[in-house]
């Protein structure tokens, strides 16, 4: 067997690291067994980019139904705005454009509207980008740029009704308070169609898991478009404009678009037609065991989560022999729109040696998670089967 120089160097480095640790502590220590982990693990999150801070949640956290605020993935283009720009006492929300009455609301005024709480998955469109082949540019997210949280806020519909949308208004644009380091970089401005904006579950949220929205997650107010990908869920929201057309500019017209054929495989449309990323496709993840685990022969609980955007999850299947045979997992609790569903499967591990555990979900419309997602130049909407390697101990 040929051992490449790189592997040799890596082994040497690990050896030296371990030796130094051993010398320093005078006790027993083992070299870090995690391989292929390019990003640093900093506290509860795996950091992909230090500035602007982009970090994903380790999948072991997905053993719980709700993802805690401290362990929730973080993604933004420019990092949070200065604290003064979003101080709840002085912060204002402007509603303008094609409306009968422009609004300028304080957080307190906004909170006079009906309060709504719902649980919804928030997922970065680039989650799983690292799995696309050929590789594509962007933050190389693996599995954890997703989370499930309880959001409390007011309906965007109620705010828009108060302002009165004019008949020509068919797109609703969001602007946050975050700004790029250079004025020459385009602002992160996005819009959603009026129908989604008027949906009773589309929220302007000021609480996350029962606590005021943290700064990294958009304090004091962010958009939540349940069932849609996270780029519509504008953080640090300060301005809503009603328009006749989709927002122009880079982040709406070039970024976050995919070939229409990748969304609707049988659409028959030419691959060149690019449409905005919107709905979350059906997807599932294995939270336990962990990648590289060694399990004992006998019953092993395989568990994870599955979600399907605006749709319900109909079933989750698990394979413990690298895809040769599949068994149905048990879905826990009740199905809730937008939230993820926990699932469990008890695997009777008998064959000693290495194997792979796979999972795939199917939504209520019969859409099944594909083995690999259609490639697209931005690396969006990865929802291929989840897979991890384990070894059954002798």
């Amino acid at each position, binding site marked *: 067997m040929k051992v490449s120089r790189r592997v040799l160097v890596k082994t040497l480095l690990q050896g030296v690291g371990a030796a130094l640790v051993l010398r320093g502590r005078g006790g027993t220590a083992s070299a870090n067994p995690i391989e*292929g982990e390019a990003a640093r693990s900093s506290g509860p999150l795996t950091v*992909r980019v230090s*500035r602007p801070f982009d970090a994903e949640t380790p999948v072991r956290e997905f053993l719980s139904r709700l993802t805690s605020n401290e362990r929730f993935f973080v993604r933004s283009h420019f990092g949070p705005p200065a604290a003064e720009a979003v101080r709840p006492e002085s912060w204002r929300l402007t509603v303008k454009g094609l409306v009968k009455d422009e609004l300028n609301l304080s957080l307190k005024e906004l909170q006079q509207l009906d309060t709504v709480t719902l649980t919804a998955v928030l997922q970065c469109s680039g989650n799983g980008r690292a799995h696309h082949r*050929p590789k*594509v*540019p962007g933050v190389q997210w693996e599995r954890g740029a997703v989370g499930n949280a309880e959001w409390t806020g007011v309906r965007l519909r109620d705010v828009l009704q108060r302002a009165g949308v004019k008949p020509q208004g068919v797109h609703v644009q969001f602007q946050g308070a975050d700004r790029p380091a250079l004025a020459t970089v385009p602002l992160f401005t996005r819009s959603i169609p009026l129908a989604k904006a008027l949906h009773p579950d589309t929220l302007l949220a000021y609480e996350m898991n029962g606590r005021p929205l943290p700064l990294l997650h958009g304090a004091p107010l962010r958009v939540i478009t349940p069932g849609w990908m996270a780029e519509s869920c504008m953080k640090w929201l300060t301005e809503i404009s009603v328009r006749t057309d989709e927002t122009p500019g880079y982040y709406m017209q070039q970024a976050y678009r995919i070939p229409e054929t990748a969304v609707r495989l049988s659409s028959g449309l030419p691959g060149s037609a690019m449409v905005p990323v919107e709905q979350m496709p059906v997807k599932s993840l294995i939270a336990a065991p962990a990648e590289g685990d060694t399990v004992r022969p006998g019953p092993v609980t395989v568990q994870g989560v599955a979600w399907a955007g605006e749709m319900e999850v109909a079933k989750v299947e698990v394979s413990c022999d690298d895809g040769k045979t599949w068994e149905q997992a048990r879905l826990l609790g009740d199905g809730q729109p937008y939230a993820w569903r926990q699932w469990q499967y008890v695997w009777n591990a008998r064959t000693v040696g290495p194997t792979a555990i796979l999972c795939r979900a199917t939504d209520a419309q019969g859409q099944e998670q594909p083995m690999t997602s259609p490639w697209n130049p931005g690396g969006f909407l990865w929802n291929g089967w989840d897979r991890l390697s384990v070894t059954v101990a002798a």
Partner: protein
Amino acid sequence: MNRSITHETSGRVLAALLCALLGSVVITAAQEDDRETIQPAQARQALTLIHARCAVCHTTDLIVQQRLPADRWTVTIEKMMHWGADLSKEEAAAVLKFVTARYHSGAPDQLPSIEEELAMIARAVGPRPGLEGPVTGEASRGAGLYAHNCQACHGEGAVGGAGPKLARNTILKNEGAFWETVLHGRGPMPAWGAVLSHQEIADIHAWLASR
């Protein structure tokens, strides 16, 4: 007692020797996977530019994790220049040559960070010219250097931005802390030791102190 000191010292020497040895091996390992040969001087120029010009908006870990074919690197660098990345045509070509050779589709998953590479080159071929002893800063030269390297984060006139306000900041009176921060970085602030010469840092300090 004596024996334990000797033991400690020999341990440190051994560790230092191993680090030096492995440093040079790592350079070779990265080069082994390059698409084409890059001379150390070219690598240093490209790494320095990446560190100084790209890190204005994002840390360089974002670059090191990409594995792209040449055409997508070309488009990416063009996009960044369009958005204000401060690179001349020649500088952009140097960066493009380096990233397409190093971070290509077939490159290994793990590669050293930009900062580690700069440190390795400094160890292998010596420090950049201009890293000399004590120097006297010149405020008039510092203004331009500040605008070019520091302003994006610390604001026009050093009044603050993404980074803290530097005008009349107490760190200016604590030269040890100032130099430590600029040379080696602190928190989100990158290390500038590989990019700015001591003379340039002194010039920036002199200009800031005059604000």
